[in-house]
């Protein structure tokens, strides 16, 4: 046994996982790439505010545009002024892509958290209560699995939009409030159809953990069910939950782009990567090819998804108990 292996005996499983993750250079690099991407996406709007743009004349400021700023240059190809070209309204694609990536990542993260909450509570309840409760709760999951989720989402979102539009035209809501509510509804809708697998994973883990001796011990010490579940059982499966959460984010980003393609996701003039791709696809025609409308949003979406997937994969390998072999 090497010295390092001996030292690792005293580490907690999470510490060992973290050590394994850092050894995986590629996944770590993707983590760094993700952080950089997040940095650019979050800081760019601050940069493009006019004061900064005026303070720094020259190369950078030529690329600074507001995402919804119209200009007379329609369908301009990429240039020094518009790095990714412009669209049908003369809007700068680069700033729209940055802005859209921000929306997509936000939707992915929040949607994943919504499904995390539902899935963990549902799965933990089924696994911990066991018996008849377990059977019923998991049958519900089975039935929901066999319904096409897209129909659910569409009905949920169109119903919400209809109600909000009615309230707004009755004067009970301002336009901003309505659009914010639509945005929140999108998170909830996406989260509400993506929790099924999370529930199954958590239930399986809780089922195997609740018969362990440390659970018996804490029960003997007089711990309540809530304490046992939240203090003793759930902390033991954090690793698995985080890993699955990381892989859920790209899945939800994809789902949102699909909804935006249908016109149910982000409402114009706001943009997400999906709605930008849909806009680009709508401009496909045999006479003129506006490749920049498609290529740039697509490549940003694909590289974001790649980074997220590699990062999530690296985490999963690191948390895999068989990883030491």
């Amino acid at each position, binding site marked *: 046994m090497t010295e390092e292996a001996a030292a690792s005996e005293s580490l907690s499983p999470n510490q060992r996982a973290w050590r394994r993750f850092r050894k995986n250079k590629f996944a770590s690099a993707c983590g760094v790439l993700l952080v950089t991407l997040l940095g650019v996406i979050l800081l760019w709007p601050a940069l493009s505010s006019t004061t900064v743009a005026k303070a720094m004349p020259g190369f950078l400021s030529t690329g600074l545009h507001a995402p919804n700023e119209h200009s007379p240059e329609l369908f301009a190809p990429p240039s020094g002024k518009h790095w990714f070209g412009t669209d049908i309204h003369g809007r700068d694609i680069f700033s729209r892509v940055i802005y859209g990536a921000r929306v997509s990542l936000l939707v992915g993260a929040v949607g994943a958290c919504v499904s995390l909450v539902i899935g963990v509570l549902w799965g933990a309840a089924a696994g911990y209560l066991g018996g008849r409760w377990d059977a019923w709760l998991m049958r519900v999951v089975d039935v929901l699995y066999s319904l096409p989720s897209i*129909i659910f989402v569409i009905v949920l979102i*169109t119903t919400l939009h209809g109600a909000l539009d009615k309230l707004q035209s009755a004067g009970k809501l301002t336009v901003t409030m309505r659009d914010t509510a639509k945005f929140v509804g999108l998170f909830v809708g996406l989260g509400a159809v993506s929790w099924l697998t999370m529930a199954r994973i958590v239930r399986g883990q809780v089922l195997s953990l609740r018969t362990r001796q440390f659970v018996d011990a804490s029960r003997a010490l007089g711990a309540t069910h809530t304490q046992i579940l939240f203090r003793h059982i759930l902390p033991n499966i954090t690793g698995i939950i985080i890993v699955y959460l990381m892989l859920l984010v790209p899945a939800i980003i994809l789902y949102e782009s699909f909804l935006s393609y249908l016109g149910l996701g982000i409402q114009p003039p706001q943009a997400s990567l999906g709605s930008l791709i849909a806009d680009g*696809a709508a401009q496909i025609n045999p006479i003129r090819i506006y490749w920049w409308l498609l290529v740039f949003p*697509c490549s940003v979406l694909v590289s974001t998804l790649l980074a997220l997937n590699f990062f999530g994969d690296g985490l999963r390998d690191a948390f895999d108990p068989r990883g030491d072999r």
Partner: protein
Amino acid sequence: MSYFLKRAAFLFPLLLLISVLAFALLKLAPGGPFDKERAPATAEIKRAIEAKYHLDEPVWQQYLRYIGGVLQGDFGPSFKYRNHTVTDIIAQGLPVSVALGGMAFALSLGIGIPLGFWSAARRGQWGDYTGSFLAILAVCVPALVVGPLLVMGLAIQWRLLPVALWTSPAHVILPTLTLGLYFSGRVARLMREGMLTTLHEQYIVTARAKGLDDTTVLLKHALRIAILPVVSYSGPLLADLLTGSFIVENLFQIPGVGVFMVNSSLNRDYPMVIGLVLLYATLLLVLNLLVDVGYSYLDRRVKYD
């Protein structure tokens, strides 16, 4: 065997339950099929239309009327396409979607299984890294990305393949690629994972210890078990692919049922939506049952009871 018979017997009540759920969901959601732009001119006409489609009856009666029709193969009239029945529309679109989905399924298994197998066989070498990268890349390029790019590049810029429609064999290539590529990545990842798990098993060690060469061990001993995750995934995958894809059918103007799945939910065309939900659920449940039969055939250690 009796286990599978029991499960097959359960299919019917399960489908009934699903139809009740779908019916209830659509009835609970506010907004009817004849609101908005399709709104009838006067209240009287509206009442007449509602009477024609029995929308004035209590919900449970509507459901019983509907499910009675379904049992006789009649899925009711479409609210949106007034002169067609749901059965007609599905009968027209389903063969197209099944053909396209079937080919995309063949493509995703045809690329995915060899790619995953190859990566696992070369674990930790460059072959593995390349294979795994390709698999993840495929998972990151959904139809939404592949479709428009392929149309723009291959169909419009270089004019190699037709842009849209569904008439000759050449029209099949781009939609199949668009639909299948993403899933080939999923399959490759499952296959690699399955191989890596299997190669740790004792019987593989035994086979190697007997002095069998690598090819025999991998192909004859490992593959049969390693393919199981792909087998279980292929049930839901096939159900998904056969019922059509909105993006692909919309982009290439293919007359399948995937477009109806989305449009009829948008239009609140209840009979259409419930018909498609039942179609999807039946396919999924039957395919999952078949997958489990196949599973126990491939892995004789698996016993259902």
